Structures are given as structure tokens and as C-alpha cells.
């Protein structure tokens, strides 16, 4: 095995590519977490986003309209989660798991219904999202090609990390959202309607998962394949836990995952069986969780799921 060609600029570029869908979904999960809704439907939402993006792009001939359609679809599905878990006070875990299974079924069903194929749908009529190169900045060695040659969704994801951090901890909106999550009764005493914030958080996670799906299906590749989210939504759930629902921390966890995926892929090119490297992101995530266990004792995450 040649170690010297394992790490180079291209590796970091693929880390960023791998992390963006997870990061978007994780930001959605984070906002829900802060509002007191444990959202584990990220996986299903992301998958539905992938399908709707591909179908939308195929039908309209525009990648960006595909993104819009993806967002519309995932917002619609997340409305079910919001109604169930907020208005009907259903168990979000059970609802989330059922929605994930629904996502696999409905995308597989519609794949046959619309495009008469099973498994993978590739077609020249699916228009992908081009990367937008930022002049000058992209010429910076190492950092430039990695950070300044992304799709618009990619830039948005990175900017949203900072925006979420600011809003969550520097603006009244974030304060109220956190209040709703931590002390709903206190928040409502102060005139903040917890349900409204929770609806907003869940619907926003729908938007972010739609973007995540679109990035996965129109940015990273230009195709839809059954179950193509492949556990990334779950990794996003874990990223929120690892980051203790802090945007910067969650971003760090996503980088870890992106690195595991990209590095695994690279090792695969160097002769390691695909089955071993495919398992890498999940094993790495699990090990990271174990190492981070001391944080769990006082993390806010444990309070929600216990």
C-alpha cells in the first residue's frame, strides 16, 4: 500500500463533499434538538429529498428547480412529523422510525411508477448542480480548491454553521428556541408559544434535509439509487449528539464522518475490500461516541432521549 498517495488535496475535497449532506441534515436535527423534539426522521427525509430532487430536475430540466421541489417534498413530510410529535404528542422516536421506513418504501415505489426502473435511475435529462468556483480564493493552494469550489448548497451549508451558531446564542430567536426546548413551561409563561417554535424547528429541519438530499443526488452524484442516503441521516443524528447540539461541535463531528468516508473510499482504491471501507464511517462514529461518553453525563442530548 502506498501511503504517500493517500493524503492529498483531492482527499480533502472529497471530505468536504462527503460531509455537506450530513452537515445539513445535522443542522436540522440540531435545531429540533434545541427545540426539544428528538428528530430521527432525518434519514427518511434526506432520502425523500434525494428522490424529489432527481425527479424534479428530470421533469423541469433545471437543477435548481429540482432543489426547490426536493425542499417542498421534505417540508411536506416533516409537517407530518411536526403535527404528530407536537400537536398529537406522539412519540417522536416511533414516528421517526416509521417515517424512515415510509421514505424507503415511497421512493422505491415512485421510482418504478415514474421512471420504470428498479435500483438505480440515471438519465442525461437529470441536470446536476454545478460547482461555483470563486475566483482568486479558489487559487489559494490547498484550501482554495477544497473550500471555494463547491455547489451553492455547499457554501450555504458552511455559512449556515456560523449563522446557526450566532442565532442560537446571540439572538433572541435562538434564546427563545432554547428556552422552549429546555423549559417549555417557563417559555410559555414569558409569552413564547412552544408549539409554534417546535413546528418551526421541525419544518426547518425538513428544508435542510431537502437541501441535503438534493446535494447528495444532484451535487455529489447525478442519479438516484434506492436507499442512497445509506445511513447518513443516522450519522447526522449522532453528529448532533457528539457535538452536544452546538453548531461548531456538530460541524466537527460531521468532518470526522466525512473524513472516514473519504479516507475509506481512498483506501478502497488502494486495494482494501469495499465492504470493509464501507463500514468505516459507522464504526468510526460509534467509536467517537464511546470516546465522548463522558460528555453524555451532562449533555443536553441525554435529557431528551432518556
Amino acid at each position, binding site marked *: 500500500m502506498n501511503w504517500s498517495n493517500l493524503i492529498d488535496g483531492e482527499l480533502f475535497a472529497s471530505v468536504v463533499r462527503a460531509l455537506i449532506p450530513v452537515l445539513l441534515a445535522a443542522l436540522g436535527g440540531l435545531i429540533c434538538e434545541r427545540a426539544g423534539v428528538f428528530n430521527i426522521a432525518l434519514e427518511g427525509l434526506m432520502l425523500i429529498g434525494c428522490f424529489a430532487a432527481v425527479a424534479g430536475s428530470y421533469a423541469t430540466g433545471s437543477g435548481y428547480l429540482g432543489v426547490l421541489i426536493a425542499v417542498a417534498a421534505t417540508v411536506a413530510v416533516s409537517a407530518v412529523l411536526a403535527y404528530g410529535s407536537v400537536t398529537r404528542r*406522539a412519540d417522536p422516536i*416511533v414516528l421517526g422510525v416509521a417515517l424512515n421506513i415510509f421514505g424507503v418504501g415511497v421512493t*422505491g415505489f415512485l421510482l418504478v411508477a415514474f421512471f420504470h426502473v428498479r435500483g438505480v435511475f440515471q438519465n442525461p435529462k437529470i441536470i446536476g448542480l454545478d460547482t461555483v468556483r470563486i475566483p482568486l480564493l479558489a487559487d489559494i493552494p490547498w484550501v482554495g480548491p477544497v473550500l471555494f469550489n463547491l455547489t451553492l448548497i455547499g457554501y450555504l451549508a458552511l455559512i449556515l454553521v456560523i449563522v446557526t451558531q450566532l442565532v442560537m446564542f446571540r439572538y433572541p430567536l435562538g434564546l427563545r428556541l432554547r428556552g422552549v426546548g429546555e423549559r417549555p413551561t417557563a417559555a410559555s409563561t414569558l409569552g413564547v408559544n412552544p408549539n409554534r417554535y417546535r413546528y418551526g424547528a421541525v419544518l426547518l429541519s425538513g428544508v435542510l434535509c431537502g437541501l441535503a438530499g438534493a446535494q447528495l443526488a444532484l451535487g455529489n452524484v447525478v442519479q438516484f439509487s434506492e436507499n442512497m442516503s445509506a445511513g447518513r441521516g443516522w450519522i447526522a443524528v449522532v453528529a448532533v449528539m457528539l457535538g452536544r447540539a452546538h453548531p461548531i461541535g456538530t460541524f466537527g463531528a460531521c468532518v470526522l464522518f466525512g473524513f472516514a468516508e473519504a479516507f475509506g473510499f481512498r483506501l478502497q482504491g488502494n486495494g482494501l475490500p469495499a465492504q470493509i471501507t*464501507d463500514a468505516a464511517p459507522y464504526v468510526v*462514529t*460509534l467509536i467517537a461516541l464511546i470516546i465522548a461518553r463522558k460528555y453524555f453525563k451532562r449533555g443536553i442530548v441525554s435529557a431528551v432521549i432518556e
Partner: protein
Amino acid sequence: MTTELAADRTLVRRTLAWLAGPVPVSIIVALAIGAVAIAIAGINPFVAYPSMVEGALTGRGPANTLQRATPIIGMAIALAIAFRAGVFNLGAEGQMVLGGLAGTLVALTMPGPGPVVIVVACLAAMAAGALWAMLAAVLQTSMGVPILISSLLLNYPARYFSSYLVRFPLKEKGSSMVATPMIPDDTRIPALIPADSAWGTALRHSLGKENALLLITRNVNYSLLVVLAVVALVIFVNRKTPGGFESGLAGQNLRFAQYGGVHTTALVIRTMIFSGAISGLVGVMLVLGSDFRLIDGALVGTNYAWTGLLVALLAANRPIGVLVSGAFFAALIVGGEAMQRSDGVSSQLSQVIQAAVIILIVVRLTLPRWLNLSRRHGRDLPAITDRVTADDEVGRV
């Protein structure tokens, strides 16, 4: 006399209340959603649904349904015991896969009489499933990783590890299929009454070739009896043993159970061991009973673990309910496949309907008050399905 009448009226009212409750309403609405999906696919639901019913209930339908119901009920009962104890095992898929793998290894390598090999293979599969589940449990109890996450993430290494073994070291040389060699004939789980046995021929002569009962005895194997025995055992444990009582208590109210002296750490580990063992058993029975070899991706591809999860939720973790809902969901799958053959509607419609049923039940969809006949007379009865709302029983991690 009057009390009898009153009892009758209560029964009618209770039935009406149940019919207006979440389960039937959710099933009907989910079927309506399915009809919309069929229409979106450009096919007339009034043509497609009848062929679904026909496929599930006529000809080979009942035999196929029972055949499918066996692993689904098995996975559902494995998950039901976990959920009942408030342990959210999402790793049944991995536990099933490793069970199938361990059982295949035994069946391929162990010499000796067939029945002995089958028993050892089943024990090995249960051990493998139990160990994988226990790993998830220990990650929660001593590492603080929620079991929901640990069990789910462990699915992937299990899936890829078995896929790796089937692709490389265990792959049958020269075969175009990515699978292990076939297991010996005498290590296959036999049908209830094999077609070529004396009984089988006698039955065919007396019942006729197309008889549903004959098809069932030929196509359904002993796995069904094993799964029924597991369900019976779970009923016994739940109702008659302290362990079953404790797990039900912990699922209802963890703090109360702790206060009452239940050792919850041991309970979580024990529950996961049983849950994983049953999942592993289902995995090996699929290999020894239907595929006769481990095919790459076949156990994951069946989706039985997730169907079983939905069944356990529909049944609110009650064993008898698992039998009924398992048969129902299996009939949906068999009917869906028939619909795919005759009308070209993707069989994944079954999964859409199943998930929709659970989503609707979880959000407690009921008939609007003005449609609810049971509420027209006298006071409202507590709907007997109130407890089916999953979150009461499934509880939290």
C-alpha cells in the same frame, strides 16, 4: 336476562368503539393513501386492489402468506420483547444477518447427522445474534451510548462483514451468483409435509393438487412451528414470570421499576440478549429453510427486520397481536407482489401502506366525533385501543 342484554350492548359498543379507534381507521386511511399512490403510478386502484386481495388469499396465496409471515412474526416478536421493556432495539437487521452467517458456517462445515447440525446451527445463530445485541446493550449500560443509536449503527458492520465473507472467502468458486455453496440436503429445514413423502402423496390424492391446505403443508416449513413456540414462550414469560413482569414494568415506567428494586442494567442486557437471539434464529431459519445458502444481501434485502418492527408497533408489543398483525402484513406483501405481476404496480406499495398504518396510529388518527357511532349513546367509553398508541408501551430508551 337484563344483565345479558346489557353485556351484549356493551360488547356492541366496545366493538364500535374499537372500529372507530386508531387501528381500523388507520388501516383504511393507509389503504386509501395506497390507492392514491397506485393512481399516481397511472393504474386504476379498483383493478389493482382486487388483484392484491386475490393474490394474497387465493391459490398459492395463503401458503405464500404463511411462508412470509413466519420470519416477519419472528422478527416482530424479537422486537416486541425489547420494546415492551422500553429497550429500543433498532439493530435486529444486523443480529439477523449475523445469525444467518453463523448458522450457514455451521451447516457448511459441521459433519454429522442432519438434525443435529440443524440444531447446532440454530444455537450458533442465536449465540451470534445475542452477542451482537449484547454489544449494543453494553454500549448503552457502560459506555452511555443510547441503545437506539448503538444498535442501529452496529447493523452496518454486520451487513458489510457478512457481505465480505460471502464475496470472498466463502464464495462458491465458479458460480455466477455471489453466494456460499449450497448447504447439504439433510441440513435443510423440511416442509411440514414434504411433497415427496408418503404423507405428501396421500394428501395430494385426497385433497387435489390445487388445495390450499396441501400447498401450505408443502411450502411452509418447520420454522413456522418454531416461531409459534417462541411466541407461546414469550406469552408465558410475560404473564407468569417475574422477569416478564419486570420488563413490562420497566417499559411502562423506568423510574418506578428502579424504585421497586428492578436491576435495570441487567434487564436491558438480558432483554437485548433474548431479542438478538430470536433475530439470529430467524436469520438461520431463512438460510436453512428457504435459500439453502447465504446469498449476498439477501437477508438485508428481505426487509423482514423493519417489517417486523412495524408489526411489533401495530401489535403494541402483544404476542397475540404480533401473530395477527404479522399475518396481515405478510398478506399485504404477498398481495403486493401479485399486484406487481398482474398490473405492474411496484410491490414496494406494501411497505408504503405498512409504514402509513403505523404513522397514522402513532398520531392517533380516529374517526371524527360525529362519525363515531359508539359515542352517540350515553357516555363515552374509554376506547379499548387507547393503549395501542405506541408511545405508552414502546416507551423510551
